[in-house]
């Protein structure tokens, strides 16, 4: 496959492209087809991407990583009085947050988007058998108070700093979905109109609606006549699924697709190669974001339980050189799990520098001395041998793993590489903490996302908690737990920023994971197209599709 890709790249470089994109329509290549279109059922990037054209959440993070209203009038805050702390029965503190939906928000059949939709969506979200995957937000809301057709108050069972971010409350049109849900809640996931009647205009409230689809192949979007915002620049948008990246590139060059989505498109290294050949024909945009590539460290390993060894591993890695050589420097080195673009990023937390001498000194101090063949051994004569697990078929990670292997070898560490298919790695090996030493993968998150699931000691996956939680390293630090608990409930921004700084400092000292870099997604657009701003986080660029234009 890889050889074929290289040969294809060579031949494509010689090929003379023919077709030019039509201007009334836009065809987007996407590497995955969404398995469902219901906004609440299943959680997958392809669905989020497609729905972003046709279905707006009440709130979302914009490209500058600021929480904004998409379907509401004003973002409620404690300062503007639309949010207020309240005392719940039993004396616990909760918060009541009042939103007003936009007056001209309409479903595609002309029905106004209303508070009744909010209440209905909450009912579905909380129902234990409705099939909603993530019920956390719905369970935090204890009551929905309808003030009028557009205004409603959500009562939360606790005060958190992100009390006004209800990005996961994706509205369902009650006038269409209620009968289907009430007939049999346990069958709702299969009887939802999003599956049974996907082209029903009343299911969508965005600038476009779904006018046709061929499962596994493509989705056709046309303008929503009831959209009250700025008129989108294209009459039609076609989203074509092309799973193979070499075929995707060929489709782009042949005019089969006009642009390739950065969210689910080509791997960066392939896009960089294409840019070198076709840079004059397409616009290439890369923006680093929140996808945090790192090495999870299994702290149950006696070797890696020693913090000096973890620090040595990081000091022996030339991460700047690695991203420069492999990714043209487009993927910035990570100091911790918080990227520089996030407002809570702590500038004064020292990023580990490449320093092989310091790494050697730390390993000496930890009792790992130079041994036969250049591999370090401890007092018992055991070799300093580690295993790094990563996903099979991910060319970038395989390359990075080889670089790490070579760099660590220079300081006397014997690194064995192992790959597993993603479903085996994430479905079993990593999620049940079966990797012996290190696992390389990425986390995808939201701006100012509290890493409770990955760092809190109560979320170490075990058989007892049904392997829930993503604290795969098995990191247990009372200080970290306290910081995570404190950040979540701190509503004062300066105080919260200080807590975040402490958290990053502790993370950089303890190194429960070794930071590598933040991934950058390549967007490939036709020349003449403007207005697309990659967000770099989980809210995809088509939330602002009405700004996409031909110049």
């Amino acid at each position, binding site marked *: 496959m890889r050889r074929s890709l290289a040969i294809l790249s060579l031949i494509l470089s010689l090929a003379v492209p023919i077709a030019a994109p039509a201007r009334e329509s836009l065809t987007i290549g996407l590497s995955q087809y969404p398995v*469902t279109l219901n906004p609440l059922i299943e959680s997958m990037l392809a669905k989020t991407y497609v729905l972003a054209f046709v279905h707006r959440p009440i709130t979302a993070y914009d490209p500058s990583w600021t929480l904004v209203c998409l379907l509401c009038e004003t973002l409620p805050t404690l300062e503007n009085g639309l949010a207020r702390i309240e005392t719940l029965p039993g004396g616990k503190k909760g918060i009541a947050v009042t939103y007003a939906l936009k007056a001209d928000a309409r479903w595609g059949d002309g029905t106004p988007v209303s508070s009744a939709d909010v209440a209905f969506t909450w009912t579905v979200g909380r129902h234990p058998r409705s099939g909603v995957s993530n019920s956390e937000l719905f369970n935090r809301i204890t009551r929905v108070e309808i003030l009028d057709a557009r205004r409603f108050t959500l009562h939360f069972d606790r005060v958190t700093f992100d009390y006004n971010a209800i990005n996961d409350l994706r509205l369902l049109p009650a006038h269409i979905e209620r009968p289907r849900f009430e007939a049999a809640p346990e069958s709702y996931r299969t009887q939802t109109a999003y*599956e049974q009647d996907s082209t029903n205009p009343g299911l969508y409230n965005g600038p476009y609606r779904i006018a046709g689809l061929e499962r596994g192949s493509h989705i056709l979007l046309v303008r929503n006549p009831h959209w009250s915002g700025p008129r989108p620049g294209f009459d039609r948008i076609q989203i074509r699924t092309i*799973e193979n990246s070499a*075929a995707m590139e060929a489709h782009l060059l*042949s005019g089969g697709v006009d642009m390739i989505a950065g969210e689910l498109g080509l791997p960066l290294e392939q896009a960089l190669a294409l840019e070198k050949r076709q840079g004059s024909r397409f616009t290439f945009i890369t923006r680093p974001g929140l996808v945090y590539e790192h090495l999870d460290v299994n702290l149950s390993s006696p070797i890696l339980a020693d913090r000096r060894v973890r620090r040595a591993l990081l000091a022996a890695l030339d991460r700047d050189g690695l991203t420069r050589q492999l990714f043209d420097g487009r993927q910035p080195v990570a100091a911790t799990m918080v990227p520089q673009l996030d407002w809570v990023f702590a500038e004064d937390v020292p990023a580990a520098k490449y320093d092989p001498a310091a790494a050697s000194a730390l390993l000496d101090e930890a009792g790992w001395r130079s041994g036969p063949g250049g591999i370090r051994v401890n007092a018992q004569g055991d070799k300093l041998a580690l295993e790094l697990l990563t996903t099979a078929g991910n060319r970038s990670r395989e390359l990075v793993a080889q670089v790490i292997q070579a760099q660590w070898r220079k300081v006397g560490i014997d690194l064995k590489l192992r790959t597993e298919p993603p479903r085996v790695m994430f479905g079993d090996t990593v999620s049940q903490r079966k990797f012996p030493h290190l696992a390389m993968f990425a986390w995808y998150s939201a701006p100012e996302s509290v890493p409770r699931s990955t760092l809190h000691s109560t979320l170490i996956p075990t058989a007892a908690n049904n*392997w829930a939680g993503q604290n795969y390293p098995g990191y247990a630090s009372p200080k970290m737990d306290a910081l995570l608990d404190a950040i979540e409930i701190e509503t004062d921004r300066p105080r919260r920023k200080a807590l975040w700084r402490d958290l990053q400092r502790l993370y950089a000292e303890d190194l429960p994971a070794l930071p590598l870099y933040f991934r950058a997604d390549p967007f490939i657009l036709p020349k003449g197209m403007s207005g697309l701003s990659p967000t770099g986080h989980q809210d995809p660029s088509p939330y602002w599709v009405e700004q996409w234009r031909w110049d």
Partner: protein
Amino acid sequence: MALGLIRPVVSRLGQSALVLLAMSFVVYGLMGLMPGDPIDLMIAGDPRLTAADALRLKALYGLDRPWIERWLGWLTQALQGEFGYSRLYALPVAAAMLPAIANTALLMVSALTLSLAIAIPLGLWAARKPGSAADILVNLLAFASVSVPVFWLGLMLIVLFSVSLGWLPAGGLNTIGGPDSLGDRLAHLALPVSTLALAGLGQFARHMRAAMIVESGRDYIRTARAKGCSPVRVLLRHQLRNALLPVVTIVALEIGGLFSGALVTETVFAWPGMGRLIYASVMGNDFNLALSGLLLATAMTLVGSVLADLAYWQLDPRVRGR
């Protein structure tokens, strides 16, 4: 149909039912033994899912029960004609599979027909004079056909006909949102069908050639010639009829493939067929869909085998006489 044929056909169909039962058990068991279920994967991908969410969803999808219990449940339903819902597509299995079956059948039948239409004359041409220039050329073509990776061939055709010449679309079923015309469908079909036909014709041509050479030395051919039959009559009426037997066997066994799809070709040409559907369902632990797709392919292979027997019966009088 002769009465003598009914018994073996019924016997073969009975055997096929047992094979299908065993296959369903094996496939279900293998999928059940695969690491991680869909909810495990969902949890790994969404940090906000809690242990309570995991338990709730596993119970909802029936994944909290042992796989044998689930298989027995599936079997009971399947025997009543209920194949359940696809977890991935939230649709009844039949509704999820039918469009893919239609797409795959269109692709594979077209490719098989084109492949045979080219391969049989090529085999005949090569067999006329073994060792001749024509024979060497056909052999080279046949070896190239079986040796070239389908993935590479497909991409090369895209590069030539879509990227460089701009004559044909690079993939998909049709022009999205365009007029659903026959011409547009055929244009989209051209490259994937050509890829599969080119990749398949080698084996048919080689078998045809070999069978024709073997038959040309038989006594009945010499007898036919001695009786004064014309060369064309000897070729078509006597030699080809017998030489077709091994080709018929291969074609019959290809019938299963007509319904299981061609994963690689479908992936390269973004063709939503059974190959991609079965792959996605296996990787997504969609038991009902994967099982139904794989069993359909198995059933059609078995049916193909029975059809091959019937074809033998029709083509070979010796079989009828037994």
